[in-house]
């Protein structure tokens, strides 16, 4: 199988990463499809119907999460973390119709009350639509997800 990630999809994922880094909540929200899932599991092989996750947001909960952040009184992100993340090792993992599944490694430097390193693997589902690319699913598998983690009120 050809694992090469088409340029437009790579550019879309880099844009998503930059909106997240810069806490551009409205811009980030605009990337999502209606059947969105934003997932931060507590282990790599989790089943979200049984295992509790740190985050398991559908589209409406993504909206709520961002609405809370936008009040300016989401104290765990007030002020927001300053962040920069690196994506690498991008690969197409599979495709179903218009949906393309992509894997990437990431390192995220988060600065708020000290500088903290978050690292792991992102799994994305990106959809080609007539209106352009949409983010359908984003999963973040932290290397330390089975251990205790710090507050993660920013966009991971």
């Amino acid at each position, binding site marked *: 199988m050809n694992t090469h990630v088409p340029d437009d999809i790579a550019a879309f994922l880099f844009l998503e990463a930059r909106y997240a880094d810069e806490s551009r909540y409205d811009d980030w929200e605009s990337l999502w499809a209606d059947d969105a899932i934003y997932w931060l599991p507590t282990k790599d092989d989790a089943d979200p119907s049984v295992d509790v996750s740190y985050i398991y947001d559908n589209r409406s909960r993504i909206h*709520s999460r961002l609405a809370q952040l936008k*009040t300016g*009184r989401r104290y765990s992100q007030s002020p927001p973390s300053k962040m920069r993340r690196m994506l690498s090792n991008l690969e197409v993992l599979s495709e179903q119709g218009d949906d393309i599944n992509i894997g990437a490694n990431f390192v995220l430097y988060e600065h708020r009350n000290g500088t903290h390193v978050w690292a792991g693997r992102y799994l994305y589902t990106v959809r080609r639509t007539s209106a352009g690319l949409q983010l359908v699913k984003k999963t973040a598998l932290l290397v330390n997800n089975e251990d205790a983690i*710090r507050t993660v*009120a920013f966009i991971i």
Partner: protein
Amino acid sequence: MTAQMDRAASVDIASLIQHDRIHGSLYTDPAIFDLEMTALFENAWVFVGHDSEIPEKGDYLTRRIGRQPVIVARGKDEKVRVLLNRCTHRANMLCRADSGNAALFRCPYHGWTYANDGRLQGVPFREGYDQEMAEMRSELGMAQAHQVEIYGGFIFANLYGNAGSFDEYIGRAKGPIDRLLSLSPEGRIELRGGWMKHKTVANWKIVNESQVDGYHPLFTHESVYKAIMPAKVDYASDELLVATRDLGGGHNEVDYSREYQSQDAEFIWFKRTPREKMAKYVAAMEASVGADETHKRFVDGPPHTFIWPNLFLAEMHVIMVEPVAANESIQYTAPIHIAGGEEINARILRNAEGAMGPAGFLIADDGEMGERNQAGLTAKMPEWALLSRGFSSEVQEDKGLTSYDRTSETTQRAMWVHYKELMTGKQASA
């Protein structure tokens, strides 16, 4: 004796805890933290896990009591034991996994093996030991907590067996556990979704205090009420019938039941979810306890109760607080699975993620307040933190010392009264 212990021994804990104020050093001094781990955890009854986490023979999970690593294991005789996680040969840690199933614990260093009830099973090349060793072999099983008791599935242990009876310890906290189980048509709950683990730069007592704080929601959680949904009750109202209560023994609670009863509405505590969305659960409850009792239980809802020193019945979730250092704690949160609860369980799971844990709409901000609390305590003036709200509103009821002012600091004072008793070895004069 280390210099640190010397210093701790010279600290007069009693003078640091006044009836209406707490000295800041109790949250920051590493020597006091050391004393706490000994007096409040290792020589005391503590929560270590739920029996539904280890349902099968051979299931185990690893935890800590104070700073000592333990394995909570169900033996092949079905009995739950709390074993010290240390090889009796030369002290290797036996088990590194969070949980699992094992017929044997095998030490990887020299291959000694232990049965899952802690007995020493095998010693490689045993000819190398003399007769003396052969005779003491039966004493070389893994060390274990002297007392283990289970109530409502909640497993409690007393490491050294010197903390009095379990009944004395658990006291009035049985009521809230019963209240939780009464929401199940089978009278049982399980923890089957695992735990969120939230690391926080705050003293364990700060975490505990915020969990039962009725004063903060309107402020700390303003962003939720503003942007997402109104609070389950009107925290701004003077008419609110929410109680704070000292149950004795360090246990305490925020009790919403009278407010819920005054509205006579079901599931106020569960986003006012209508019965129709949980028809199978409602039917199972009515079949089990009848329609009237079901209505009453759905109105009263679950406990919001702290069980000393490390268990919080957080309504539809269970929280366990693990002290790490004077300025570091881990808050564990598990969604409750109601046995026979059918549709409500999937909702509880998603609710846990929405509200609780390091990304939760509520707890992430409580965590932030805890860290700010710890940071503020590095300023040494004023020396005291105040806990004086609501004295005059307290009344002695059968359930405990109660204030119907939900902002009263009755809950925090309940912890400190007990803390003082345990740390000084003295019973407070009533």
